[in-house]
């Protein structure tokens, strides 16, 4: 039973466009894509479109060369490469969030290279602590809503939006439960599988996904009584995305397990809900403002470092792995301070620089194994 369920999630991740194509055929609807992170999928959903996440691709990254210099992160390059290769042919639109200089510039290039009937940006505020941020954010959400309404030809009623919000909250809450179960027995699913389940949310119609997820959570909860928890070296992963996914396999194979993270395709995706009482647009703004700290926001005094330390402690992790995409500036600017904070707290850290679509991963395996051996020793001794 569990195996069949898991197979569905894995298939969604291995063939990301499958559900979108089927959904279009069945419903005759339109699919609006989004790039990470933080795009309010609830708005797309409430407008009657299927939201589809594009958190990078793995093939033909070089096809972006003519448009994006080689010193641009492989996440952006691989997304554009997917479009150039015709692998996103089912998209009727795309929303790009402005979270860094690359995403800020990518939209115009995308529009030029591969125009879509609907293209928008999500220009979220980059400061979140002052009153102006909330007011602006609400206006921006209102603007996005109107643009989606124009494209769909009908209004999004508050009731509709509320329904979408509660559907998304429901799936996020299930993901939080799953993540707790994973933490309690990280050998059950393994890191690769856990993050596949999270990621498949981006590729499936949300109703269907939530149904499957609910079944999965129930099954795991039930069998919990019967299965003893396996022992793994608990780790925290910090970065934008868990890419390439083989790294998760390597961690699993080396006896580790990722039990906490701050990633856009991980905890950041399901950490925070939107309130379900009151004005739904205001609720989406609140969700954004309450997001966990990350490289894309500029909070004073970097609560991100404190956040990482606290999370590492709360979940008793043996070490932190920074998974940084090469050329990702926001992550690199934060790194030194984050590492310092970990050092002060006595938590070992390892920085790995990765790229999507590269094949030379063996060196990384060696470094990971060495790190795991090291932290295992420390964990025993402590």
């Amino acid at each position: 039973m569990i195996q069949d369920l898991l197979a569905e999630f894995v298939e969604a991740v291995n063939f990301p466009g499958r559900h979108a194509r089927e959904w279009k055929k069945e419903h005759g609807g339109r699919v609006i894509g989004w790039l990470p992170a933080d795009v309010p999928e609830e708005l797309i959903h409430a407008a009657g479109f299927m939201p589809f996440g594009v958190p990078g691709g793995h093939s033909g990254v070089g096809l972006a060369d003519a448009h994006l210099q080689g010193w641009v992160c492989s996440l952006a390059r691989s997304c554009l490469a997917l479009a150039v290769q015709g692998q996103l042919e089912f998209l009727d639109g795309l929303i790009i969030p402005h979270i860094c200089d690359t995403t800020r510039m990518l939209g115009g290039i995308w529009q030029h290279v591969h125009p879509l009937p609907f293209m928008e940006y999500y220009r979220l505020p980059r400061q979140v602590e002052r009153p102006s941020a909330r007011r602006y954010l609400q206006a921006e959400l209102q603007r996005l809503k109107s643009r989606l309404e124009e494209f769909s030809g009908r209004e999004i009623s508050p009731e509709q939006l509320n329904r979408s919000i509660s559907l998304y909250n429901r799936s996020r809450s299930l993901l939080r439960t799953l993540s707790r179960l994973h933490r309690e027995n990280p050998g059950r699913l393994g890191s690769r599988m856990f993050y596949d389940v999270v990621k498949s949310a981006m590729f499936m119609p949300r109703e269907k996904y939530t149904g499957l997820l609910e079944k999965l959570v129930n099954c795991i909860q039930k069998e919990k009584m019967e299965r003893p928890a396996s022992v793994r070296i608990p780790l925290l992963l910090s970065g934008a995305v868990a890419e390439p996914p083989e790294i998760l396999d390597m961690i699993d194979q080396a006896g580790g397990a990722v039990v906490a993270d701050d990633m856009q395709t991980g905890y950041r995706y399901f950490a925070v809900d939107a309130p379900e009482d009151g004005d739904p647009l205001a609720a989406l703004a609140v969700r954004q403002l309450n997001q966990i700290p990350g490289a894309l926001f500029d909070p004073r005094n970097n609560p991100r470092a404190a956040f990482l330390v606290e999370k590492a402690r709360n979940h008793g992790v043996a070490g932190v792995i920074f998974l940084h995409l090469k050329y990702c500036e926001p992550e690199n600017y934060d790194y030194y301070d984050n590492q310092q904070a970990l050092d002060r707290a006595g938590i070992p850290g390892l920085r790995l620089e990765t790229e999507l679509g590269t094949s030379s991963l063996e060196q990384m395996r060696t470094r990971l194994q060495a790190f795991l051996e090291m932290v295992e020793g420390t964990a025993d001794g402590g």
Partner: protein
Amino acid sequence: MADKIPFRTSQLQKELMAKYYAAASEARAAGVPVAWVTAVFPVEIVYAAGVFPYYPENFGALAAARRVAGKLSEAAEARGYFYDLCGYARCGIGDAYSREHPVGVIEKPDLLLCANTQCGSLPKWFEAAARFYRASFFLLDAPLVDEGNSQMVRDYFVQQLQEMIAFLEQATGRPFDYRRLEEVLQLSNEACRLWNEILDTAALKPAPFGFFDACLHMAPIVTWRGTREAVDYYRALRREIQERVEQGIHALPGERYKLYWDHIPVWPRLKWFGELFAARGALAVASQYTHSWAYRFDPDRPLESLAENYVSAYVNHDFRRRIDLKIQLMNKYRVDGYVLFSNRSCKPNALGLYDKSNEISRLTGLPGVVFEADMADLRFFSEAQVQSKMEVLFEQLASR
């Protein structure tokens, strides 16, 4: 080719910049807070608040021009700041951690005021600096503008200016002086007007003044904008250029072609480019970089007009609009070709240049090149590669 006659005003600039750096220490001694600001920043408010504005980007450009950017960067790289980051930021961070200071010590901030109109590197750099120097950080957030959102972004910016004024009142312990702001805005207007009149002379054929000259004369419009000093400086420079026009002294004797140069120079190679172009009779005459200081404020609507000007900086626009703006400058200066600098340090300016180049040539019929380098760091400069790119352009120019 005759040697270039140096500008008399250059000496004046040296004195003015020395005065600027001295003013920072004097301010500190007198208990005036020193605030780090970004190049495209409503510094008028900072001056009006009686706070001293310091430009760390200038420090980076200076280090780059003196060819020590790589050296300073090493100290940052040793701490895990990678060489893929903006070169200015690496210079600034590197200097903070360095024991050697080949271009003097970067001024320590009491406050950090940052606008992200230009890029997302500045806030990340300033934030890191705020932690290092234990100073408070204020971000002026400027989302990218287009027709669909420009009004709401302006409203957002005005509200943030009010928040910043409150922040500065706290820092200085004094109420903000709006009358003083009016004066500063007028001074800023005047300096910008003079600066752009000067830039315009590059359209004359042959021209008395080109883009590389502009790069050497722009420090005051960045750092002294909003003061009497900037106005006096550009009056003197304009007078000198006027004299040169009358005496027939040209920026490039035997000027054959005018080129548009996108973005900033490769600082450590400024002279090399100048000579390479001069040898072929080509003069770079305009650039979005030097033309960025073309503000016109309405002192009767100070905050609104500050928002309008600073939010609609060139670099805060999207792909299409930026192509239009480049073409407008190309038309205005009647250029024969263009050079686009794909600056590894500066994603907001470099990304999309290859597609933009195709579009510009399609729309204008002008020949042009895109070349790869870093504005500060010579580790990313391949002379042979750049030269061969330029040769292709020169051949195209010659065959037109």
